[in-house]
């Protein structure tokens, strides 16, 4: 069946199976920044923004996003570049597999909240696992991005 999705500021039509998850649809249509890391909705590398809120696309049925807005990292280019700048300064880049999803979540957090404590930031980002970085360098970079009001 066909669904219409407002993806990265553009309407697109996707042909989907009723039982298909959004993650598989997106990858099939070459949104390859959205990735699979688990089968249990535990890792967060499949995160997209659905009407601005981060969701794991591996557990969202494609049909359910008909007429909704989906954002992948390509849709927040400018902000992702800023986040990347601070990641570079902190040496927070490693394998990068978790990065686009983390960037989306961090961006959504900045949209939604001001003045979060370290603990609140961690709680917000807890669904975005990273096996490489040890987290602290990432969090320093995130903090700098949140403080960047440009």
């Amino acid at each position, binding site marked *: 069946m066909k669904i219409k999705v407002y993806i990265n500021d553009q309407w697109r039509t996707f042909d989907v199976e009723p039982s298909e998850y959004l993650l598989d649809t997106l990858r099939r249509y070459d949104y390859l920044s959205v990735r699979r*890391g688990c089968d249990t909705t535990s*890792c967060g590398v499949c995160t997209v923004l659905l009407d601005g809120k981060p969701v794991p696309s591996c557990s969202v049925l494609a049909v359910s996003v008909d007429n909704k807005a989906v954002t992948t990292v390509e849709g927040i280019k400018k902000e992702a570049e800023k986040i990347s700048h601070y990641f570079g300064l902190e*040496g927070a880049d490693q394998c990068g597999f978790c990065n686009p999803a983390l960037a989306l979540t961090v961006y959504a957090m900045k949209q939604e909240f001001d003045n979060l404590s370290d603990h609140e930031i961690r709680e917000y980002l807890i669904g975005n696992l990273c096996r490489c970085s040890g987290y602290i360098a990432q969090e320093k970079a995130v903090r700098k991005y949140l403080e960047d009001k440009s």
Partner: protein
Amino acid sequence: MKAVNVLTPSIDGKGLMMGKKGYTDDLAEKDSLIIKVLRSPYPFARIKKIDVFKALELVGVETIITHHDVPRVPFTRAGQGYPEPSPHDKFVLDEYVRYIGDEVCVVAAISEAICDEAIKLIEVEYEVLKPILDFEEALDNPNIIHPEAKIHEMFPIGFAPKRNLAASYKMEVGDVESTLKKADVVVKDTFYTQAQAHTMLEPHTVNARIDYQNRLIIYSSTQTPFHVRRIISQALGIPLAEIRVIKPRVGGGFGGKQAIHGEMFCALVTYRTGKPSKIVFSRTEVFEATYSRHPMKIEMAIGAMNDGRITAIDCHVLSDTGAYGEHALTVFMVTGSKVLPLYNKVDAVRFSGEVVYTNHTPAGAFRGYGAIQGNFALESIIDILARKLKFDPIKLRELNMMKEKETSPIFAIMGEGTEGTAMTMDTCKLDFCVKRGKELIGWERKYPRYDETPTSIKAVGMAIAMQGSGIPYIDMGAATIKLNDGGFFNLLVGATEIGQGSDTILTQIAAEELEVTVDKVIVYSSDTDLTPFDVGAYASSTTFVSGNAVLDAARKLKQKMVQEAARILECTSKDILYDGENFTNTTNNKLISLVDFANEITYSREQKQLSETGSYVGHKSPPPFMAGFVDLEIDKETFNIKILDYVSVVDCGTTINPKLAQGQVEGAIVQGLGMALWEEVKYSSSGKLISNSLLNYQIPTRLDINNLTTEFAESYEESGPFGAKSVGEVGIDTPPAAVANAVFNAIGIRITSLPITPEKIFRASQERKNTHEQE
């Protein structure tokens, strides 16, 4: 320095953050056949009959491959150099299945759904055999896990499959028994370490196609593309020259992608059908059917004199390699060779043990392999000894530990399979690391415990560690650099970027030697057709071994450029001054810029391609050293442990890229904390993996890590590129012992098995209460 040891963001960080495609699955052909594996439901069984007829009839099924359809050539998936120190005890597919998850047959179809349906239609009759699920019962058990003919060792590694023995070894320096007898104090204890799962976030992924030259092109998320090419060729009988292995961006490895997993099946399907194929492991498969860390039982005895001098160490290891002996010997050897030399002033030291087969998921390489297990045992028993001697544990270490310009006889005796290599420590800033770590953690104020409240208590603990920088005379890396018109360079390296930042630091090394900025060097890594050889990303070899290869290539190219510039400027090479921008004839101050030089050499007069290849094999393996200090808080009722801070002070020589080196240390520290506290591969009593998803196997989350403090000692290793040693693994070693020591410092309970869970502490506290009551 211009490019080395200065802040340099990862050269690929931005592109990856922006979601550019580049990981293996992003590069699969759209019309790839999907490959799925039917896996064994039994820990040990013989396939009596396998009927694929019905499944083959299913529309969309391309092929099904069983053990009847593959050459019966034993090999090892370990992903090591040739000849491998691992037994050749694996067949592409076999009539025996040896763990739950072992491969029964391979299905290729046009969709995942059809694969799944086909798998349901395959009828397999098994003769279920009695498994061995307790590694302490494996040796000389009447059930033999590898009874088959043809399997063999490549050279003596103590392989005795009839005894369920994958490898064994023994060495002794001095006379341990009599030295222990003469010691004033002897302590003995037995330590257990669990299996740990790598849990890199990108699952094992491979795809293949036949190109227009009729060659087999494989993309794989591997740490060892050159070994993959060789091993596929050997096991499947495909000529080496027909195979090209490309390693795209890899989403984490940690040793888990050193081995061959999906490659064999993709190669097989595509080679036989001529069609592109792909396999992406599910997370369950990654847990059940790749590798985890070798669980070990380590018996330690240590003797010392009353003045604190450690005189003898005796270490016996029993290691569980699971169903296949991949890395059986090498991991176990490291438990001695990269641990025991820490205390090099002993009169006698012995290391021995057995690596046994069981019907568990095989064990393989995992960051810090062998060392983290051994370190937990040794650095725990050092604290136990200190208490018995009434010695400060840090003083005891300072008195006995390795110092600069010293050596240990173990280096010459123990290698990873063959003999080792004698070496003295040209750099060892362990004394600084300990001193500085003490300051950073606030040891004087906090040791042994502090800030006690009715409900909680805080404490500190520490451990020291060493690792290596590649394997001498075995690990080789190579690099080619060529100059382009426009005055920039291509750097082609066999070294394998897997997220650790090797592309960035190798670029920095080349740029530094060529005296240009990093953006003038374009790196391309790990493609068996295009880049020179490299063993791959393992054994902490990249910075030291591959880095030295890059340096060698850059030096040679610079020399050649200077020669050519001398010709153009009509002087001798000696008269040329090169500063990265210009070549100057110092006799007359005539100059030519690098850009003009490069254009001239490409387009006019004596045109030629300037390019050089360098390669390097280590003659020693300078160990990085570190001291790790944990600051933690224990809840007195629940025994929950909260990590407040982890201080690492590391001597890895020059940090080529200080921030990325810090990332290597911190990522490893957190994985080590996972091993110390939370992570555990668990099986049911019938041999089924319980921890087969991210719900049942928990890696550290953001909330588990409060703070990490990481510093580097000033250190310059002459034999390394710009003074560098490697740093990929050393960080993982100290957390288990440091945490165990801190728990003891907090509440006087010594936990000798990993992970250190609240349940174990609770049980130990109950036992202690009971013995107190009996007394």
